[in-house]
């Protein structure tokens, strides 16, 4: 169905919802690369004004990617809960934005509509929201997940301890993990990206972290971020798999390029659940996403990159994940050019994920060919702390020497916790105090040589 709007006598015509969404998106290079962006500032705002008048019910009658073509569309359509949609069914996209910001629309109200909103509705409303709006509404949401600890409680801010090594050297990785633990990092997960996807290499790292965790009774979970098929194989070999990782995208074709589909994810989810390793809960999946992945796989079907991103969240929510991480600036400047675009995209992803009920974390990051630096990341990490982000990455000195990009350091997380009065996951917080890593008020203590001494046996790898 075409939409149109007239500004100063000029008629802007948008052929369908897909085009309207793309034209209304705040500017980013990826949409321009795909030839989907508005051509002028006026066209963009005209599209936003047009979009604000679109009834939410239109989204139930139109699919941006045809139902027959795409299993993600089928998941969205078949999983829609009309009853949950009822309280907002009379609203337009613009009305929805105002409703979200109302004082009466609190956490419980938002929880109530979770199953009634589709990714495209969420993407649409985010496009007409300012950064401030994205922060304010995300802050109302509380998405709590549990495995060996509790992540996402209000007043808490967690980190993934990401101590990667270019050759997966176990001692190199162990050194990074120990360093991170002494900075109070690792309550979301101790999560390592393996350089090699070989099952033997992944198994070695799983055993290493499991031994450390068992010996010190660390209330956290581990994950080696290998492909889901590798993880399933390892589960069949009785490997100590806590969380099962997979990168996902918002179209069936893009997921095919990652070598996954919903059937495979079902299998992985069931296999991981069967291990029953969680002590306080059974959220076992860890997903990573990022705007631009569908376009880079040439699988976007003319849908803008942010809408594609939110469609990936429909997949994530099917599996009640422990963690969802948007790796916002990793993809490069042809998708998100500079600090401004990266910050905007991160706030959109965090808001959209939270509204859909996901435990959102953000990899606050950039590559060296993007127009961004650590100052931009400082701005973003502060905004995300205010917005109630569940977790960020903790990487030695912000410098990932395996993936060759820059993210947030152990120190950055401590800064956010200190500035905003946030604490680690409660179980992990108690553990840090018990080990003498922090004092009871949460302040970091100097590294205790006695604790380090107790780790001696771990080096016998």
């Amino acid at each position, binding site marked *: 169905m075409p939409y149109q709007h007239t500004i100063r006598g000029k008629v802007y015509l948008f052929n369908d919802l897909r085009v309207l969404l793309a034209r209304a998106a705040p500017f980013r290079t990826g949409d321009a690369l795909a030839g989907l962006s508005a051509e002028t500032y006026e066209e963009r705002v005209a599209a936003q004004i047009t979009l604000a008048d679109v009834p939410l019910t239109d989204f139930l009658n139109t699919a941006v990617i045809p139902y027959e073509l795409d299993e993600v569309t089928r998941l969205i359509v078949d999983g829609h809960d009309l009853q949950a949609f009822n309280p907002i069914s009379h609203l337009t996209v613009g009305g929805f934005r105002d409703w979200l910001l109302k004082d009466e629309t609190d956490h419980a109200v938002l929880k109530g509509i979770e199953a009634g909103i589709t990714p495209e509705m969420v993407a649409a409303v985010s496009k007409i929201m300012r950064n401030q709006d994205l922060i304010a509404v995300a802050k109302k949401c509380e998405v709590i997940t549990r495995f060996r600890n509790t992540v996402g409680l209000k007043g808490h801010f967690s980190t993934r301890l990401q101590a990667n090594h270019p050759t997966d050297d176990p001692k190199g990785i162990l*050194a990074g993990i120990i360093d991170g633990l002494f900075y109070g990092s690792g309550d979301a997960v101790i999560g390592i990206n393996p350089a090699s996807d070989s099952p033997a290499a992944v198994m070695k790292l799983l055993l290493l972290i499991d031994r450390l965790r068992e010996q010190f009774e660390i209330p956290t979970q581990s994950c080696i971020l290998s492909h889901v098929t590798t993880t399933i194989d390892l589960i069949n070999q009785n490997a100590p798999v806590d969380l099962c990782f997979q990168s996902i995208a918002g179209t069936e074709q893009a997921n095919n390029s990652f070598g996954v589909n919903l059937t495979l994810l079902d299998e992985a989810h069931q296999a991981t659940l069967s291990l029953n390793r969680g002590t306080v809960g059974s959220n076992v999946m860890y997903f990573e996403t990022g705007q631009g992945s569908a376009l880079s796989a040439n699988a976007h079907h003319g849908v803008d990159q942010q809408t594609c991103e939110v469609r990936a969240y429909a997949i994530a929510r099917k599996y009640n994940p422990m963690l969802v991480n948007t790796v916002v600036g990793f993809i490069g400047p042809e998708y998100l050019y500079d600090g401004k675009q990266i910050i905007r995209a991160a706030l959109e992803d965090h808001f959209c994920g939270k509204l859909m009920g996901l435990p959102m974390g953000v990899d606050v990051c950039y590559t060296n060919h993007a127009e961004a630096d650590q100052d931009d990341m400082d701005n973003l990490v502060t905004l995300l702390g205010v917005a109630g982000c569940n977790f960020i990455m903790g990487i030695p000195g912000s410098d990932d020497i395996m993936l060759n990009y820059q993210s947030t350091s152990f120190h950055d997380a401590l800064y956010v916790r200190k500035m905003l009065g946030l604490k680690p996951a409660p179980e992990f917080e108690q553990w840090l105090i018990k080990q003498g890593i922090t004092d009871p008020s949460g302040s970091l203590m100097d590294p205790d040589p006695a604790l380090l001494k107790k780790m001696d046996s771990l080096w016998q790898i």
Partner: protein
Amino acid sequence: MADLNTLHFLKGFTNARIAIGRTGTSIPVTESLDFKMAHAHARDAVYSSMDIPGLTAQLAPFNLPVIELHSMAADRAHYLQRPDLGRQLSTQSEDLLAGQITGFDVVICIADGLSALAIHENIAGLLDLLIPKLVHANFSLAPICLIQQGRVAIADGIAEQLQAKLSIVFIGERPGLSAADSLGAYLTYGPKRGLTDDSRNCVSNIRAAGLAHEPAASKIFYLIQEAFQRKLSGVLLKDNEGLLR
């Protein structure tokens, strides 16, 4: 400032920025500025441009004609935002190539990619080792093509125009904080426009402190010979790469 010594021994196990201490909860000044300098080197490398006269002089001893080409990306900002344009030759460059003699075994292309610095630091040393091997094995060599604002796939069009059986592109890789001068080599058998990366073989991290010039040249030469023998490149050729490691 917190005690650095307790954790210091960890540095022996990895090049990651661990055990850097803290002031309050922040990174100490020396480490903070050290990081900034590494990023500055990476940024300067991204914005470095090829010194064409200097490179032409360096390439003179090989007695091959040198052709200067440019992609459709006008400048660096354009290049970073439009990867598609970095893969296509400018009209002027297309015309220049149209007037060349055609029919060769191998065309050597040199593109700035994301680090012209990597070209400056590595290309002469690497070709000094590689070109004699190719000549000795009786491969006929096309003119060397220098491409500004180029991406890997731009060599497909060049090789098509020059009717070369195999193209090899030397290109500056995306700088990391630990190295800004890393060179990549991509070879494609039967190059033509529209190929994707699975048709290519890549030798990466070529630099003094990474894969040194001697083993890099041997590996590339081996891959070229194999590609000609099996008349293919890419994933299907990969299996045998392990023999060299």
